[in-house]
């Protein structure tokens, strides 16, 4: 049962994270209007399930709800792409097959990536498969710790570590792939 005290606590713990919630939602929903809807849904759900929040670690708890709301809304809107279920094993196999690209010596990649324009970086980040995209957004943009990411995504910390590592390699490969043809004019 919620009372005034509970509502005051909810506002004190949850409203400071509204920017983080919206920022994450924009990346995961990939649409500003949908992101706003997702954040509103998430706050409604957070209020409903507020009793299940343990301690005061509200941010990852809220972001987990935001994440799930984003994916549900995308599904409801029949939007295709990375929000669909992602087959990690199949993708790992594909990545291994693409090993020639992603295990290129890192040094030249660094130089190429340093020249990548911001639009291109955003496009490539948005093009990553869902499981990799979300850990990278949570780590690099939202500044979450591995433990927080594990809580938000619902996986063990070891999985967060390996996904993050793959996500970075994959993004490096994607950016390098797209920067080079532009520079060579092909």
């Amino acid at each position, binding site marked *: *049962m*919620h*009372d*005034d005290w509970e*509502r005051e606590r*909810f*506002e004190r713990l949850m*409203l400071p994270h*509204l*920017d*983080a*919630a*919206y*920022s994450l939602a*924009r*990346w995961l929903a990939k*649409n500003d*209007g*949908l992101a*706003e*809807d997702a*954040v*509103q*849904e998430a*706050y*409604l*759900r957070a*209020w*409903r*399930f507020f009793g299940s929040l343990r301690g005061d670690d509200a941010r990852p708890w809220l972001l987990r709800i935001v994440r799930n709301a984003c994916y549900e*809304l995308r599904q*409801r*809107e029949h939007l295709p792409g990375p929000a669909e279920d992602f087959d990690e094993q199949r993708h790992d196999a594909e990545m291994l097959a693409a090993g020639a690209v992603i295990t290129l*010596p*890192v*040094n030249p*990649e*660094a130089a190429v*990536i*340093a020249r*990548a324009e*911001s*639009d291109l*970086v*955003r496009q490539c*980040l948005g093009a990553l498969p869902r499981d990799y995209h979300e850990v*990278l957004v949570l*780590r*690099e*943009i*939202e500044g979450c*710790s*591995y433990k927080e990411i594990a809580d938000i995504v619902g996986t063990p910390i070891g999985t967060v*570590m390996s996904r*993050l*590592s793959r996500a*970075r390699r994959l*993004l*490096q490969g994607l*950016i390098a792939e797209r920067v080079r043809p532009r520079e060579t004019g092909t």
Partner: protein
Amino acid sequence: MKCTEVNRLLNPYIDGELDLQNVLAVEAHLQECPRCNAAIAGIQTMRTAISRACEPAKAPLRLREAVQAQFAGTAAPRQATSLSLGVCLAAAPGIAALLIVGWLALAQPWNAQSNAGTAQGTRIVYHLAGGNHVKANLRTLKNHLDAEPNLQVVVVAHSDGINFLLQGAKDTEGQPYIGALRELRARGVEFRVCTNTLTRQQIDTRAVVPEAVLVPSGIAEISRLQKREGYTYLRL
């Protein structure tokens, strides 16, 4: 420590997630391994590129207002509401959680702090986002009107919630919705459709039935009705 082993630890090392023993081992290795140093430089360059390209967004003011409005006056209900929500709760357990919030909001007229709309009939904004159970939802609306004839109702639809307001829309049994819609319109219920949803789903505005009107954003409209016009929020 070998390169393959260090490689596995580079990401947690960069992210400050490694324990002291492993940090020392990685740093000892980095002293003498140009290849692993280059790998770190690659990751760091990309992190810099991401932070340059992707600044965290700030929530727009309308969203902040809408979220705050959701919780304004949602204190614990003093007594049970007479509104029958059983149909929806039974039919759509997935949105039951949201309905509870709507139910809490509905309790607002009994709270001392609430005075909106009581003299001229309670004002309710129904939020409709899903395309399932539309028939049950319309029946709920009708029951609500039967129970409170002075009720002023606005239905704001977005996402799949707009589907029954499109020309030629039919229920799962093939019956057109238009009859029920006109009946509710005749009783003063207003239907408002989110233009953002139409744009997103590439639906022509002319496909919307003339019984409904368009608003730029469904969510903003709900927020405006609550904040500016004293409507009580209820989720369908």
